């Protein structure tokens, strides 16, 4: 009888098989107000638990800062979200409908998650303009790319982003000739061209002067709202200047979450992180 029930269940006319579900090219659904769900994620490298039972939720339109001492699993977490590393257990959803664990890196990027690397990575033998052109949202399959032409709207969009990141006068310069801080901005500009719903920004102000830092803070703050932004950063002053909500990672899981003030006064956080650096 059990087998018969199973057969009936399989043959049900309203049943939808997993393999029939569309996995790529879906529009992200954030109707519940949360854009990223990471649940019970664990990953270990050669026995070392880089991420240990991590639970993290990012709201749509939020600007979230993630801090934590070295080796806390911040970059590994970004690797999992963007598909570079597959977790051993747990689930990762983008909105309610997109299962990140079954998508490749380009699919995840096309679904609307943009990532800035820790070390600024731009296409050094292309001009700034070309860098932004390549990053631009659109059909990125081989054949359409071969015959792609720029429309005037797209040109305007590139100009707009060049202005946002303040590099208009370097438009036709090779990206390789930019300073470290300018490369950071260009990379953020490339993220903007991708038009992502969620931006993951890894150490955006490393190697920047104070003025540059202020401008970056301004830029990231202005992005929140239309986009959700997750910033991983070591620089406490910078985090304080932009953060509304801070998550502290420690040994691969969330140690504390709340406003900068709450987090700073949490004795556990002081012990593992702020304590080490003194009052940073």
């Amino acid at each position, binding site marked *: 009888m059990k087998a018969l029930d199973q057969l009936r269940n399989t043959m049900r006319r309203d049943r939808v098989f997993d393999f029939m579900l569309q996995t790529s090219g879906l529009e992200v659904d954030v109707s519940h107000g949360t854009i990223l769900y990471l649940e019970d994620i664990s990953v270990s490298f050669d026995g070392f638990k880089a991420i240990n039972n991590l639970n993290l939720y990012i709201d749509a339109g939020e600007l979230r800062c993630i801090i934590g001492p070295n080796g806390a699993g911040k970059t590994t977490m970004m690797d999992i979200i963007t598909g570079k590393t597959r977790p051993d257990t747990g689930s990762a959803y983008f909105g309610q409908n997109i299962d990140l664990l079954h998508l490749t890196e380009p699919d995840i990027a096309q679904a609307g998650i943009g990532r800035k690397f820790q070390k600024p990575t731009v296409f050094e033998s292309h001009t700034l303009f070309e860098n932004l052109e390549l990053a631009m949202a659109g059909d990125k399959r081989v054949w359409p790319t*071969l015959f792609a032409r720029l429309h005037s709207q797209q040109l305007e969009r590139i100009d707009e982003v060049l202005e946002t990141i303040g590099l208009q006068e370097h438009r036709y310069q090779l990206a390789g000739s930019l300073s470290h801080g300018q490369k950071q901005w260009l990379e953020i500009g490339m993220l903007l061209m991708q038009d992502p719903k969620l931006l993951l920004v890894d150490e955006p102000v490393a190697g920047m002067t104070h003025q540059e830092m202020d401008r970056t803070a301004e830029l990231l703050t202005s992005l929140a709202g239309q986009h959700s932004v997750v910033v991983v950063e070591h620089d406490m002053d910078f985090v304080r200047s932009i953060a509304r909500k801070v998550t502290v990672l420690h040994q691969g899981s969330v140690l504390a979450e709340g406003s900068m003030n709450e987090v700073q006064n949490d004795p556990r956080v002081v012990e593992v992180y702020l304590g080490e650096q003194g009052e940073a």
Partner: protein
Amino acid sequence: MKMLNVLKADRGGQIFLLLLLLIAVVVPLLNQFTTADNPLHISTYTVALLGKYLAFALLAVAVDLVWGYLGILSLGHGAFFALGGYAMGMYLMRQIGERGVYGDPLLPDFMVFLNWDSLPWFWHGFDMFWFAMLMVMVVPGVLAFVFGWLAFRSRVTGVYLSIITQALTYALMLAFFRNEMGFGGNNGLTDFKDILGFSLQEDSTRIALFVASALALALGYLACRLIVTSRLGRVAVAIRDAEDRTRFTGYKVEHVKLAIFTFSAVLAGIAGALYVPQVGIINPGEFSPLNSIEIVIWVAVGGRATLYGAAAGALMVNYGKTYFTAALPEVWLFALGALFVLVTIFLPKGVIGLFRAKDKQT
């Protein structure tokens, strides 16, 4: 008009195509309308030699497309070249017909010699020119597609990829050396008589093959240039410089690599098909890993990531090879090795780099 767009802002390419056009016209004229005692006379032997160089130049352009623009150092492009050559060789073998040593109307000589009584299945169809020409492109293309699909999907890159391309061509060489493979074993395919009904010994056929090689080189150059100047070409360079960044930007890096690698293999196959009727033989030696390394040296000497530089490099090095192997045969391999070392150290942008540097200063 589109062709002209592709060449806009490509002065080197314009000069290259003009020179190519010039020799495609002048060489046949000097061959036909001067007598042997005229100092400007170009012998038919030289015409065939130049035609061979042009086929090599097309091969170099194909390698430059994947190495210079995509960052894949293929040390196995000789395999695609040889496969194209074998497809052409099979057509030429079938054209011999009853004129072979054993006079068998259907079987090529080596099969009669091996006591085979029927044509192996993969030799069918090669009596038709169009089918053979299709195979010239399809066989290298399919091999490159399957090989690339496996290699790129597993994210094999850099020197590891170079080593397995080298293994690929080596494995094919060993396979083609076997008589049982049905491609003439050690001796390969030779003793060709005619192509499309024209005798290969005739001057006019040699000139036609020479002009066809020049045309194929020009079209191959334009096709590569079309890719390189498109957004896809910029994606290729992006992959070369920052593969992960390209992936996180939303491009399927594996697909781009696969498409360009396969196209390049097809070009190499066409070059091989032009090479074989002009030298009159194809044997497993063409699969030798050394050959594939030599192609890379042509590209390095001429200048990477310029396309026309690769073609120029192929012409220069091969002229040197013809000269040295005749004058000082034992020196050639040392000269080639020294050339590669010197170019890498002193001319990282190749010989073309010298001219380009001057261009930018003025």
